[in-house]
């Protein structure tokens, strides 16, 4: 792109070939070139004269040319996306700017350059320059080396992975050089959706659901196949679920439906919170301290094989009321899963991490705080996900046996009241709510383990 503010004067200007060669000789990257090569370079250089305040180029323009400053000073301000060590600097005589033109992928301009005085600048086409350098491999290589070094010194790796969402147009600058990243968040997502729609997957998925619901319909409502006719069909369930005036009393429009959901979710939240609060530290200590493990793990292992439901009568005996036993059972189930996985997490930490920490002078407690806890996080979150699943499992069972309200209770009472469509509604609701809770745990885990997410993202993209 041409810059409207630059003015190219006619030939016969003050910057003649001799001066250009002399200038290039003083310019750092061109030093290794022989006089003859310099002359060749000079022949493709166009002198440009600029006024104070003129713009040479600005961010995001196409980069075709390299500039060598002959006289005057230029302010070189890198755009915020460049993640440079130094954002603004002043360059002067015999300095080179705009070397992005020499890079393989021709990234867009990263900086805005403004003349601080009236300047004389040489414009050199990057492509032509590389062609000249290619003639002379040895010194050409040195020129490129010098450019490479300048690059390395000036840029830092941007946190582009974490910025995928915010930055609509970002430029990846890294240890591996420069490249334009047209893989912005939005376009990448669009691309993936397009790819997905092109693949047979969504249609097969649709087919799967069609077959499932079709079979269900035909078996129960269509053909009234033996025994299947006792089950409520999809149409009946759907009508009941979305009815403003449900036959059996439970639908999307009855407050009772939400009371049941609320009860179950609240119990899960309480139990999960309690289990995490107790299970994570317990698991950490189990993994960290051998003595602690030897004393407590046998009891833990003796109690663990007893199915949670077998605790029901005991729980009713131990705790008064109907609410506490349910919470106790659910907590117990989650606690075992959380504690066990946290312990495995601690055990999975490579022994060189605590060693490295201790030889860097960390005390035992610091090792625990800075190595053991973060190192166990991945397993811990796997444990928490399992723990949510187990919590739902035991909650439903506990609600069915004792307790009032809640989805398990709803399913069981619907059975005794012979309101069969409500059973299916309850089951479907359980599925949805259960899925949401475990997704929430997963998201929380990703939030806490940015390092892992970024590592995996990189592994996936390369």
């Amino acid at each position: 792109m041409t810059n409207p503010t630059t003015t190219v004067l006619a030939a016969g200007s003050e910057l003649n070939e001799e001066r250009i060669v002399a200038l290039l000789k003083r310019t750092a990257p061109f030093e290794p070139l022989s006089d003859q090569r310099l002359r060749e370079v000079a022949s493709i250089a166009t002198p440009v004269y600029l006024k104070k305040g003129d713009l040479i180029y600005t961010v995001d323009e196409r980069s075709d040319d390299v500039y060598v400053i002959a006289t005057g000073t230029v302010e070189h301000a890198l755009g915020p996306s460049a993640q440079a060590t130094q954002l603004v600097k002043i360059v002067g005589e015999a300095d080179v700017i705009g070397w992005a033109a020499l890079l393989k992928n021709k990234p867009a301009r990263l900086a805005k350059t403004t003349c601080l005085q009236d300047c004389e600048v040489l414009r050199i086409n990057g492509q032509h320059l590389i062609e000249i350098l290619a003639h002379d491999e040895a010194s050409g290589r040195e020129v490129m080396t010098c450019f490479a070094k300048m690059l390395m010194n000036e840029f830092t790796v941007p946190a582009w992975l974490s910025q995928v969402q915010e930055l609509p147009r970002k430029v990846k600058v890294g240890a591996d050089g420069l490249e334009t990243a047209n893989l912005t968040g939005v376009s990448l997502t669009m691309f993936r959706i397009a790819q997905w729609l092109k693949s047979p997957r969504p249609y097969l998925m649709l087919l799967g659901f069609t077959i499932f619901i079709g079979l269900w319909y035909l078996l129960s409502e269509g053909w009234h196949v033996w025994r299947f006719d006792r089950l409520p069909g999809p149409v009946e369930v759907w009508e009941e679920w979305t009815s403003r005036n449900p036959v059996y009393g439970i639908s999307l429009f009855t407050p009772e439906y939400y009371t049941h959901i609320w009860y179950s979710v609240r119990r899960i939240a309480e139990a999960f919170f309690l289990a995490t609060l107790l299970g994570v530290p317990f698991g950490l200590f189990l993994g960290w301290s051998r003595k602690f493990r030897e004393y407590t793990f046998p009891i833990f292992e003796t109690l663990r094989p007893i199915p949670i439901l077998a605790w029901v009568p005991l729980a009713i005996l131990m705790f008064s009321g109907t609410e506490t036993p349910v919470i106790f059972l659910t907590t117990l189930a989650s606690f075992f899963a959380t504690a066990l996985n946290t312990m495995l997490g601690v055990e999975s930490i490579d022994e060189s991490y605590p060693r490295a920490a201790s030889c860097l002078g960390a005390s035992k407690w610091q090792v625990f705080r800075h190595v053991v806890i973060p190192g166990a996080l991945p397993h811990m979150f796997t444990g928490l996900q399992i723990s949510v699943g187990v919590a739902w499992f035991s909650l439903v069972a506990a609600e069915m046996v004792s307790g009032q309200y809640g989805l398990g209770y709803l399913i069981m009472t619907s059975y005794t009241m012979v309101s069969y469509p409500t059973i299916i509604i309850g089951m479907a609701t359980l599925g949805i709510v259960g899925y949401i809770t475990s997704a929430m745990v997963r998201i929380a885990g990703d939030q806490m383990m940015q390092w892992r997410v970024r590592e995996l993202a990189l592994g996936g993209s390369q």
Partner: protein
Amino acid sequence: MNASTIVANRPMGRLRKSIFHDTGSRRAIVSLILFLVFWEVGSQSKAWFGVQLPWIGMVPAPTAVFSAWGPLLLDPSYWQSWWQSSYRVFFGFIAAMILGIPFGLLMAVSKNYRDTVFPVFEIFRPIPPLAWVPAAIIFWPTQEMSIAFVTFYGAFFTVVLNVIGGARSIDVRYFQSARSMGANGWDIFRRIILPGTLPSIVIGATVGMGITWEVVVAAEMISGGGNSMGGAGGGLGFFIWNSYVGGSYPQIVVGMISIGIAGYISSTIIRWIGSRATPWLRMR
């Protein structure tokens, strides 16, 4: 001391080692005894000190449990409960393996099949197995069959997910080397996919076994307890529930411990079979 003395001291070393090893088991014994003592004191707090401790105070004491257990050992109906539960677990588990393994392998092998079936499979997964109990009772003609169904359902998902995960984690180089040595599809399935998935199947089976016991106990309590199916045919879950309803509280704990033992034995068996089936994982 020099090197030779150390080497000569080997028996001593071994002895020290074994004592050292013992600290682990000694601590385990100490902690278990402490646990029992604490439990006993807690349960007897009212009788001994006149003050009933919260929670633990309501639990039958270990001595009461053991004295209740004694006569039960001679009672055939107790053993019948064992038999009932084990029988259900066994059939539910076997059914889950027989249906789950081919189902999972099919999903792992055929992409189209997986894309069609897996989403449907996924929407079923978050529904806890026990939520199926009423629907199962409605559908199946006998209660026994509905319990069997729920048991099967509990283990099925774990088995299938492990089979898929295992088959898909097989190193692609194994397929490539097999193909470049001239193997056909069937041979790859038989000699690469099947053994390659076996370790995951074993893991799935061990976890599935645990779930099966959970489900069986719950199903027995819900259906046997809710319905008055009654009698000794109810299994260990019903045994516990029945003891609760009948007020013989120490028997509840006997039932719990029995189920714990049963679960432990069955998972040990699975693990043993698993390690026989995958000898290459037993290194050295």
